[in-house]
């Protein structure tokens, strides 16, 4: 066997093997000892994370499987963050799921398969591999959302997620097939070269781009393809919401970069316009709709839509007048944005799960009433998350917004500068509803007087999560540098 061929994709293979091992092992483990499965899953994820880190610092780019997959620093960095996000998700989810009889072996197996899908997407260098990874992730997530079978809300959410997700996959596949028809290749770098020749019928390419962008917008949850997001976020059990809203965002970002930037940067003029519209619409609708919500999960869903809009803004100024000099600045800003957004989302949903007990879902904003009296520490942690989402310094959310705005302004194109002003005004709308959560926690008296009784590992993890959001806000340089390195190396190859 040729080890050279396997080396670049060793983490993915290991994860696949371990997912199967976890699935099989769990069959022999009685329900009360499920902690064994949990530890096994976490250990496998941890080793995958270590491997990603190792590859990232190796810094080399490998192609494998006849150029079907690429293992490059950007892939490894996003893979590393996805794996860490998945580990954090499982830490938060375990006690929550256990108290709702959802802690089954499938939770771990499916999560691992979803992660495998993410890693495959992140490493894809071929349209079919992108699609393969996407479906592997999506199918695992559909099943996870549907895991609480006897709950109508969850079932409805799963149904919506599945139908709309399948539609989105169809869009994407249709767009990709058009690109294939026009360029004659499924390989992303070949498509890039073919577009670069300029001899291909532009109408077909643009039509294909429209479908690809729509498919991606569905997966990202950008307006007007956002309808599934609020229902799935609210309807799914919170642990599953976190599975949907955490690592998969990184994956969606990764395939957006792979398809649009690596493959179709020659068509940037066209897809940048679409992204501008998508992002303005997302920020507008997301922020406005979030104001009206009383359910925290639904509010966070709309807030996610708005955040995605802001992130898409970072992808817009990559190519200015046919020039890619600002590309690495723009895309690394967007990457920083999505990574920090996932970090913050993990924390907010973690808080919801911390406050939930058996038989009580702390998913209304009112459930956070007077948290500052019940637990000053966790009220502080939640406040850090909220200020970060609102983009107030000294939290990491501010630097994420700054990076994107900076990318827009540095193009020196009046249109982009006005876009920055619009984004800033819309994020002011956002500040209102994040502040409302802080208000409820600090200014109101508690109605729910139960002590916070979350498991110790959840408390520690949440504290780390909050500290990370704050510390990255004070010292964001390192993570920014990593994102930039990854994107610069991607362009170098």
């Amino acid at each position: 066997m040729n080890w050279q061929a396997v080396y670049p994709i060793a983490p993915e293979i290991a994860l696949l093997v371990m997912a199967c091992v976890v699935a099989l092992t769990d069959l022999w483990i009685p329900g009360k000892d499920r902690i064994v499965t949990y530890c096994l899953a976490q250990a496998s994820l941890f080793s995958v994370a270590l491997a990603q880190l190792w590859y990232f610092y190796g810094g080399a780019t490998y192609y494998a499987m006849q150029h079907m997959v690429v293992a490059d620093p950007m892939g490894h960095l996003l893979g590393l963050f996805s794996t860490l996000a998945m580990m954090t998700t499982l830490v938060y989810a375990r006690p929550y799921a256990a108290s709702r009889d959802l802690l089954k072996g499938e939770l771990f197996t499916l999560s691992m398969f979803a992660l495998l899908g993410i890693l495959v997407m992140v490493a894809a260098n071929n349209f079919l591999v992108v699609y393969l990874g996407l479906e592997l992730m999506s199918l695992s997530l559909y099943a996870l959302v549907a895991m609480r079978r006897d709950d109508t809300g969850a079932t409805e959410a799963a149904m919506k997620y599945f139908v709309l997700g399948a539609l989105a996959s169809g869009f994407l596949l249709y767009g990709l097939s058009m690109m294939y028809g026009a360029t004659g290749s499924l390989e992303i770098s070949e498509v890039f070269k073919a577009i670069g020749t300029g001899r291909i019928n532009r109408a077909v390419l643009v039509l294909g781009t429209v479908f690809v962008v729509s498919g991606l917008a569905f997966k990202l949850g950008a307006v007007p393809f956002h309808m599934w997001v609020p229902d799935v976020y609210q309807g799914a059990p919170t642990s599953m919401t976190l599975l949907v809203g955490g690592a998969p965002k990184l994956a969606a970002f990764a395939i957006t970069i792979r398809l649009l930037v690596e493959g179709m940067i020659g068509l940037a003029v066209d897809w940048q316009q679409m992204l501008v519209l998508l992002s303005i619409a997302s920020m507008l609708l997301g922020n406005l709709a979030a104001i009206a919500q009383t359910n925290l999960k639904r509010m966070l869903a709309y807030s996610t839509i708005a955040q995605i809009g802001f992130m898409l803004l970072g992808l817009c100024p990559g190519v200015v007048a046919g020039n890619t000099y600002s590309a690495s600045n723009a895309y690394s800003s967007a990457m920083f944005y999505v990574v920090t957004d996932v970090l913050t989302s993990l924390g907010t949903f973690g808080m919801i799960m911390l406050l939930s007990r058996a038989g009580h879902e702390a998913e209304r904003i009112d459930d956070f009433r007077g948290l500052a009296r019940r637990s000053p520490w966790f009220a502080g942690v939640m406040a850090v998350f909220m200020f970060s989402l609102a983009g107030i310094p000294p939290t990491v959310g501010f630097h994420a917004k700054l990076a994107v705005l900076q990318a827009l302004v540095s193009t020196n194109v009046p249109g982009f500068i006005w876009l920055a002003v619009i984004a800033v005004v819309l994020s002011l709308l956002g500040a209102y509803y994040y502040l409302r959560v802080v208000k409820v926690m600090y200014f109101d008296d508690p109605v729910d007087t139960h002590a916070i009784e979350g498991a110790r590992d959840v408390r520690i993890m949440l504290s780390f999560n909050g500290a990370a959001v704050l510390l990255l806000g004070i010292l964001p340089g390192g993570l920014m540098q990593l994102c930039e390195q990854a994107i610069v190396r991607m362009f170098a190859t």
Partner: protein
Amino acid sequence: MPLLSLAIWLPILAGVLLLAFGRDDRAEAVRWAALVAALVSFAVTIPLVTGFDVSTAAMQFGERHAWIGRFNVWYMLGVDGLSVWFVLLTAFTTVIVIVSAWEVITERVNQYMGAFLILSGLLVGVFCAMDGLLFYVFFEATLIPMYLIIGVWGGPRRVYAAFKFFLYTLAGSLLMLVALIYLYYKSGGSFDILAWHRLPLSMSAQVLIFFAFFFAFAVKVPMWPVHTWLPDAHVEAPTGGSVVLAAIMLKLGAYGFLRFSLPITPDASHKWAWLMIALSLVAVVYIGLVALVQRDMKKLVAYSSIAHMGFVTLGFFLFDEKGMGSELTTSGAIVQMISHGFVSGAMFLCIGVLYDRVHSREISAYGGVANTMPVFASFAVLFAMANVGLPGTAGFVGEWMVILGAVKVNFWIAMIAASTMIWGAGYTLWMVKRVYFGAVANDHVRDLVDIGKREFAMLFVLAVAVLAMGLYPKPFTDVMHESVSGLLRHVAVSKIAR
């Protein structure tokens, strides 16, 4: 020794420790710890003035470390004659605030003290930051503790006031963020404020930047017509919150004009000076009249603050090409900022003293307080006189300098500005008459107990400061002289790119 870093991070660290380890059953220990922390932080700032070199306009006590490499952002600190007094004023006010809360705040003491200590460090950071982004981070971060202070310990409409405060200020400063990023781009990737001062800019770019800064700072000052958040915030905030708001936070906006608008966009500042002068005069006259009809003492002082800050912005934007007028008005405005810090803080403390006893801020709930609280009433009347601008008190010096300079620029502007002496005397003295003098109005007033040692101490210190500044303002003007003339020389030169 990195004095400025100490002045910033000591109170923040102390505040965080109090938040982490303080509990209400150890409230007394928390109070003492907070007081010690505030005193030490104040002590750290004293060498800034004693060791200040008055012969130069350059930045002193500078520190410079790399912060965010990717954006070329530096942790860069420094003070000059424009800012050094505000560092002291902030640390000093924090001490007073902690003393004033001693017996009043009984719930969540550690959070209250912690919030004020953290706020103090952040405010010092705003005055010391020499990097645009660092400035912005401190400027924005101050919103968080103030929002919580108003919302948690405030009056009945605290939630409304806290939101209004936060969103109003955020709206202004977000535009400033875009301007900062634009300057960053224009200067070839640098957030260095002093480099921006030298940066040539076209008129159209200057005007856009000027207005972006204008929105941020005008809201903060606040200038008419974006002042409406201030009376609400003041009325609802706890005493300490009002004191810090009036004494320090309003100065952030005025300081911003000095540090950003004037030197970075001198041509736009000249071009739009008429607007700034007009808005300032509206603040002086119209807001002065509004203050006259207030029934709530805190609201009255809040409006009086707006009117006084109108004087400050007026002083900054009176340009006199020929003579000494600008120097007088600008130094006068800065002196006015400092004296207003003492006087308005003291006025709010006095209202706090009354409120703690009677739980009303209505003027009509009082009458003849001087009969039952003679010691307190003498302090209160002294501060009221300073607010009016009586010669010999701190309030006089700044207003006098601004008016004197204004006469050299334009007689009519000076004339309208000087009318503040009438309005100020009107609303302040009328309030003093109704609250402190006359016969004892009701049983609440009859039962009043005069101030104790703690209250005496804090009012006494402030009274000394107010009188010292009024009688001998030379140390203050000496420190700022070089920096002000340096600034004016800089502003007088057009930087339109040719």
